[in-house]
């Protein structure tokens, strides 16, 4: 025993202890894992799988389904031989809304974050103020802005739902106001993580402010930019509360984003639940594609750095 080197002994001991521990913990499965597993099954797994199943059925509630195959999916686009463009409309309307809001939110929050990392007086107070709207929920926030918008627009005898474009910009302003503070916080953390030596070195080499931004700050911030872009992207794509409270899809369903369009199909028209569920499946696939692309991008970035 004494001749043996101590390393394998400790190693084997550890492995044994590990398995003993694992066995002991495993006995406690009903206490540790079962409650979450049950709730997860009720709250996610079953509704998700059953939702996919129901998208191939005609139904008004979960028990009275009858199989109709792909009919729901074709009915999204063609109803009784005529083309229904409402889903396609909200698809490109959502895409446009998402692109515009992603650009504005990221550019604005980046500029604010740059200014608030210069060490000016009152930085903490400004940060607090900018972040505040993020904590207020979409519904409450939208009624605050509905009042402001309509108070201003009444001078031109208009309301926020006069056209789909006033509704569009109204929603853009609301989500910008809500999310700029949030993204600003992430950008500030990113900027503060850039090593000071790098900036000093670039300055000594004679880089001007623009070169510093273009060749040092932005490249170093790429991981942060990726995170913020995808956060705003999925937020924009899944936006519901603000849409419901601010415009309700008006005028005439023209300002419906995808999430509200699905909700309206499912609960607005009796007998259309199957089509709503089919739309939801397509919506899920779109969101999943975005998430997978994001995952690919962030992991490849991590490997690089």
């Amino acid at each position, binding site marked *: 025993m004494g001749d043996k080197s101590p390393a394998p002994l400790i190693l084997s001991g550890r492995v044994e202890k590990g398995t003993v521990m*694992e066995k002991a913990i495993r006995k406690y*499965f009903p206490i540790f894992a079962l*409650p979450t597993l049950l*709730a*997860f099954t009720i*709250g996610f797994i079953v509704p998700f799988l059953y939702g996919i199943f129901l998208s191939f059925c005609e139904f008004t509630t979960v028990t009275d389904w009858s199989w109709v195959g792909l009919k729901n999916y074709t009915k999204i686009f063609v109803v009784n031989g005529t083309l229904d463009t409402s889903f396609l409309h909200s698809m490109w309307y959502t895409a446009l809304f998402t692109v515009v809001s992603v650009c504005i939110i990221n550019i604005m929050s980046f500029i604010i974050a740059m200014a608030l990392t210069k060490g000016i007086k009152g930085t903490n107070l400004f940060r607090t103020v900018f972040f*505040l709207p993020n904590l207020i929920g979409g*519904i409450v926030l939208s009624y605050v802005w509905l009042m402001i918008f309509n108070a201003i627009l009444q001078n031109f005898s208009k309301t926020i739902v006069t056209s789909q474009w006033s509704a569009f910009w109204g929603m853009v302003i609301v989500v910008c106001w809500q999310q700029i503070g949030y993204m600003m916080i992430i950008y500030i953390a990113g900027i503060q993580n850039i090593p000071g030596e790098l900036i000093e070195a670039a300055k000594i080499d004679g880089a001007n402010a623009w070169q510093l931004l273009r060749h040092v700050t932005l490249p170093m911030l790429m991981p942060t930019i990726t995170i913020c872009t995808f956060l705003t992207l999925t937020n924009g794509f*899944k936006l519901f509360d603000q849409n419901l409270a601010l415009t309700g899809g008006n005028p005439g369903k023209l300002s419906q984003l995808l999430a509200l369009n699905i909700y309206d199909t499912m609960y607005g028209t009796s007998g259309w639940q199957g089509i709503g569920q089919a739309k939801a499946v397509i919506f899920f696939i779109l969101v999943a594609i975005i998430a997978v692309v994001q995952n690919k991008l962030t992991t490849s970035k991590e490997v690089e750095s």
Partner: protein
Amino acid sequence: MAANKEQVSTVRRAKHGWILTALFTIISILWISPILVVVLNSFKRKAFIFRYPFGISANKITEGWSEFIAGTKNLFCGTLNYQNGLKATNFLSCFGNSLFITVGAVLLIVLCCSMCAWYIVRVKTKGTKLMYTLCLFSMIVPFQMVMFTLSKFANMLHLSNPLGIIVVYLGFGAGLAVFMFTGFVKSISLEIEEAAMIDGCTPLQTFFLVVFPILKPTTVTVAILEAMWVWNDYLLPSLVLNINKYKTIPIAVQYLKQSHGQIDWGAMMAVLVLAILPIVIFYIICQKYIIEGVLAGAVKG
């Protein structure tokens, strides 16, 4: 070194620093002005809210001081809007529901998901691996995908009350929480737990006396992220809860519009102020944790 450098750059910027400070002071006031306007309007007579949305008097100041004061007295109506708003929404009971559901859901999620995450990391079987993958997967599924089936199942299982919806929140919120907890548990070294077990702790004692205290930073993050979600959530409770009996604050605000067809803007302003006030107070008290939590959540999510 770093501190010194920071000072240098501060000194260098100080020349123009006050311009930025002044600029941001103005922007900050503009930034919260929508809330300030709502607070102001919540005290105005409802007939005047859209006639004088941004002013403080029905008369112009050029008409003379006494006219201006009379106009102000005419414009404001004290706490009348608040009385109407409280009555129309039954606000106190909504606040109670929101508070109960949020606190209950956050406590349950933190407790169950931290335990489950520890189990998943420490017991390595195909089952736990599958569960972890499913949790990750659930994070990318939009709520619209499950809303119909979930709300019907919740009805069938008699979960349409504040106590039941907490279970639904545990189910639908488990993905994020388990993901964040497992990330942290993986970084804890086994030795501490082994030592506790050798000293005769049961797995339960090991978890609550040793592991759970170490998890505290992640617990705070998870609690804040889930609390922000649950408190502000509209769609899930509006579909799952029995709306005639139980409303949360976002539902009460939304239904203030629908029940009258047209909006009673006086009551609406007052209710909005009442809905925002608790959030602002909570934010001021827990600011540090909220910002840290959001940051940790964003980077990991």
